[in-house]
């Protein structure tokens, strides 16, 4: 299973295995990793699963669609390029080793 590292805003790291086909948000949720709220359960409706993708991974993840881009644009503390909604990133072998960081607040 792909391993994903989630880094909380205070620097606490969690490296966990996440099943293929799940989302990066579901990986955090199922492992009880703090910093991702995911109120809408992955419907791209709440923007409370905002993460910053590590710079080395930005180009390796499928691009965001318009809805995700608009949500992020107006989320708390977005960073163009690095900001993503974790529920919109599907996990697969190509993401083994992915590193994401959580923002200070989900807004």
């Amino acid at each position, binding site marked *: 299973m792909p391993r994903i590292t989630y880094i909380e805003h205070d620097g606490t790291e969690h490296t966990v295995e996440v099943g293929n086909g799940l989302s990066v948000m*579901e990986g955090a949720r*199922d492992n009880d990793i703090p910093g991702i709220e995911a109120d809408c*359960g992955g419907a*791209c*409706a709440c923007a409370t699963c905002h993460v910053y993708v590590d710079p080395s991974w930005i180009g390796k993840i499928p691009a965001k669609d318009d*809805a995700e881009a*608009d*949500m992020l*644009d107006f989320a708390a503390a977005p960073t163009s390029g690095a900001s993503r909604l974790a529920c919109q990133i599907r996990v697969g072998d190509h993401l083994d080793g992915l590193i994401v960081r959580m923002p200070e607040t989900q807004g």
Partner: protein
Amino acid sequence: MSRVVIIGAGQAGASLAIKLRGLGHEGPITLIGSEEALPYQRPPLSKKYLLGEMEVERLHLRPRSFYEERRIELRPGVAVTSIDRAGKTVTLDDGTSLPYDQLALTTGAEPLRLPARLGGELPGTYTVRTLRDVDAMAPEFVEGRRVLIVGGGYIGLEAAAVAASRGLQVTLVEMAERILQRVAAPETSTYFRELHRGHGVDIREGVGVASLAGEGRVATAALSDGTTLATDFVVVGVGVRPATGLAEAAGLAIENGIRVDAHGRTTDPSIFAAGDCTSFPYRGQRVRLESVPNAIDQAEAAAASMLGSGKDYEARPWFWSDQYDVKLQIAGLNAGYDRTVVRPGARAGALSVWYYRGSELLAVDAMNDPRSYMTGKRWIEGGFSPPPAVVGDPQCDLKTLAAPGSPGAVPATPRGG
């Protein structure tokens, strides 16, 4: 160590249990639910799950191991039949009983049905509340078949969208003058009416179902306008009633739901409640919300209160709905609005409807317009009310609107309530 029993293992019940552990409660937690499944999310039931685009495991709020690791005892498939407040025990439908120190009621809501004497219980007639409901109706969704959807609220409209997307012939009847009448302004109703008509749905407003009939299975519907419609199956989405039976029998106060205070406490100090089954104070009114965000936030606030926090729950209402390729996002509550402003969005098909009472912004419906939703939500929660004329001007950039010195930069005013 206090022993907590939670009745109802849905969104609110699971959130409450998880939060209790998260806040450091070490005593026993038992989560009793009449459904067989692990606690799951309902929104996809009328959306991706019904479309066949989401597997059942992904509906689960957490994997089974999660509860085991946190010593949250799940009792699926078991219903509580009564509460003995004096003896602090609950009785289960398997004949056993369970003691508690603190009790939480997260019993949700029950779908309204058409009465049996009007054919509402004929085979081929479905409600949309549980995984079982949806698994039972899913095989009916076969291309070319005819479905009658009763009720033009979000659930009915979402079911219509799924059916039309899968190539069924869809008729939707709404007894009120327009779809979404109870929850949205005419502009929002119009947007969704046009969307559905564009997908071939036959929407009939101001028309109700007088009765359903069929030999052993529903086959026709007599409508209130005197016409009769032949159909292969019927989906009923005419609203819910809060599941207050247990609470009522136990003598707790009921007021459009189980009455709780800002701490999630019922009229018994050892009994808390959260989610669809409750009514609670919100900005000077008493409201009952049927939404996932409220179920989560209210349950978490109740968990904190159970452990002694004195913090008030301040709801930040929002909701969403998915129909075809349109995502509707709603921030705030529009109850009491006296005017609306419509704002075309930046992308094709994007539109937002802003609800005002006088100069106060109450709510926004954003259709394929996350920018308006995100901005509106922040404004409403922060107590900002930009002038309606400015919001309605598509040339006005939402981002600069709230910036200091801009026409929309009205200082936040403290709210009552």
